């Protein structure tokens, strides 16, 4: 009988300990196992959905796949970060019926990009209320400039000087503004990109260009009469030529949307501007880039220039036949 009591006593001692240890063991070890498996398998999630939270991927017995988003999406730009280089986007624009539409969808794109500074330069005598109001309502970080390309009064009608390619004076003004605003010695990291208001930009593009040291390049779709034009990249990851049909022997056979420049380089070479006059068609980009870099300095992005992240779309000029001579619609309604 004492033996049984002994046993009882021993059981009473051991039981709670074992219970405790098993419970503790389970809750401690299993998450460690899970994390260990996760380590290094993290897929590259796109930068495109910064506040999104994918919940379920309904693997399909259904033909239709739904991705349920749980997080709220903001309509303001992402919070400013102290570590990301600022992307200064220079966009020349001019008044025409589709201007507000183009700038609206451009703004919708830019609102997804962190640390973006939009420099919008109007080709006009003074800043128009349409653009002023639009910029203010977007909530983007912006600078609004304007300079008018001189008209060629000798020609009939109100045409601009045909010897100056469109947008040149505006881009140069933005470059000058950057040089006046930013000190060459300051540590402000920045990237300069020329974005025309009718192109289409993917969000990955801006993340690719953020790591530019001097000048980075990538392919552009729908330019030069091709599906896309792109730099030629050799096995060592260096640019050695241009895959274009139209004059591939230009110093930089690339479209305005196909490169980005580090701000430091712009400030370091304050004489570099786009050439205003006497520029052959297609040589505008070269007129600036040849003062900044050589071919071997170029950094290829977009997976060694194999992915298309920007499209040189053009918007049709809307047919306004029914407006007639006097204008059918109320001119006070802004389009």
């Amino acid at each position, binding site marked *: 009988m004492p033996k049984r009591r002994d046993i009882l006593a021993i059981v009473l001692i051991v039981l709670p300990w074992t219970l405790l240890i098993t419970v503790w063991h389970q809750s401690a070890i299993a998450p460690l196992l899970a994390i260990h498996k996760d380590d290094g398998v993290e897929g590259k999630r796109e930068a495109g959905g910064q506040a999104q939270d994918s919940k379920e991927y309904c693997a399909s017995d259904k033909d239709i796949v739904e991705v349920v988003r749980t997080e709220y999406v903001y309509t303001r730009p992402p*919070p400013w970060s102290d570590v990301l280089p600022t992307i200064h986007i220079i966009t020349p624009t001019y008044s025409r019926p*589709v201007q507000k539409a183009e700038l609206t969808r451009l703004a919708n794109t830019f609102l997804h990009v962190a640390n973006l500074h939009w420099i919008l330069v109007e080709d006009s005598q003074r800043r128009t209320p349409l653009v002023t109001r639009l910029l203010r309502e977007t909530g983007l970080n912006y600078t609004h400039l304007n300079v008018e390309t001189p008209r060629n009064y000798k020609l009939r009608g109100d045409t601009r000087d045909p010897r100056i390619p469109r947008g040149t004076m505006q881009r140069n003004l933005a470059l000058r503004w950057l040089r006046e605003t930013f000190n060459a010695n300051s540590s402000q990291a920045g990237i300069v990109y020329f974005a025309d208001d009718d192109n289409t930009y993917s969000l990955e593009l801006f993340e690719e260009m953020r790591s530019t040291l001097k000048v980075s390049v990538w392919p552009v779709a729908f330019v030069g*009469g091709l599906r896309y034009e792109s730099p030629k990249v050799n096995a060592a990851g260096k640019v050695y030529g241009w895959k274009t049909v139209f004059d591939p022997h230009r110093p930089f056979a690339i479209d305005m949307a196909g490169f980005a420049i580090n701000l430091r380089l712009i400030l370091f070479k304050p004489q570099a501007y786009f050439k205003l006059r006497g520029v052959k068609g297609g040589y505008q980009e070269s007129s600036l880039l040849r003062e900044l870099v050589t071919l071997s300095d170029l950094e290829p992005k977009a997976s060694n220039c194999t992915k298309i992240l920007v499209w040189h779309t053009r918007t049709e000029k809307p047919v306004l036949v029914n*407006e007639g001579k006097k204008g059918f*619609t109320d001119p006070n309604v802004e389009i």
Partner: protein
Amino acid sequence: MATRMRLKLKTVFVLYFMVSLMGLIYALMQLGQRCDCTEHDMPKDRIISRLRGELHSLQEQTRKLEATKQPEKNPAAPFLPTIFVITPTYARLVQKAELTRLMQTFLHVPQLHWIVVEDSPRKTALVTDLLKKSGLVYTHLHFLTAKDRKLQEGDPSWLKPRGVEQRNEGLRWLREDRRAPPGEDGQQGVVYFADDDNTYSVQLFTEMRNTQRVSVWPVGLVGGMKYERPVVEGGKVVRFHTGWRPSRPFPMDMAGFAVSLRLVLTNPEACFDGEAPMGFLESSFLKGLVTMDELEPKADDCTKVLVWHTRTEKPKMKREDALQAQGLGSDPAVEV
């Protein structure tokens, strides 16, 4: 032996007491923390997304503390009716670009469900990948237009109506998926037909969200004019300001109206008539649903343009075609 026993029992009790005390303390400590016992069940990308979401909300909070005066939208938003956007699309050079910038606009609209219907015999990889990476709530459908209904190369764009079968397919899916249980009123929601080359402001979706039957607004750059719009007097639509055939029952563009989900579900026969004469496509759908005085005018009594009927130029491919003829065309594996 008896004393030893008693001693042993006493120690047993003491030990028992100590153990339960420790257990209690442990449990109390656990109470203070969040129970993450389900974490090892979640797939890894859920963890990543959740962490990213937490990171973002923390960033938002710090931004708030930095004395911003912008009004905050409550993250746990009160119930918002879902906007179902039906977009017909078809493969052509600019398709990926158009869908990309459309997606970038839609990402700003909460509670939006994008229904993309491809004019194709099967789902293409381009659209599938784009939708998967978009982060939007979406449904991917496809419906091939019959050959005789399809525009051929060189046809002017007004010759045959486009997107009819695809929009009807979107409606069919909606009616099947959101079918209300018998006796119930049906879910709240709005249905909008958004072509993939137009331009939409985010404000537009705010305006259409509380549509009760059919709401209308101006559309820019359409009908050969700067904009077309319904004319509103006394809060009701009395006529339409359009430059082309104003005698149509509903002389509006596809982008100029939205229909409440309830109306779509309770009228299962209402769809777009591909045989309707040019310009009557919208009317063929709406005339069974609503009368003109039931229309709800939005956008400040239809005085603001929040959507533009932009069209994208077909890119010139002269050099590409020339190269292709020589067998030197660009790498088709690179998706454009």
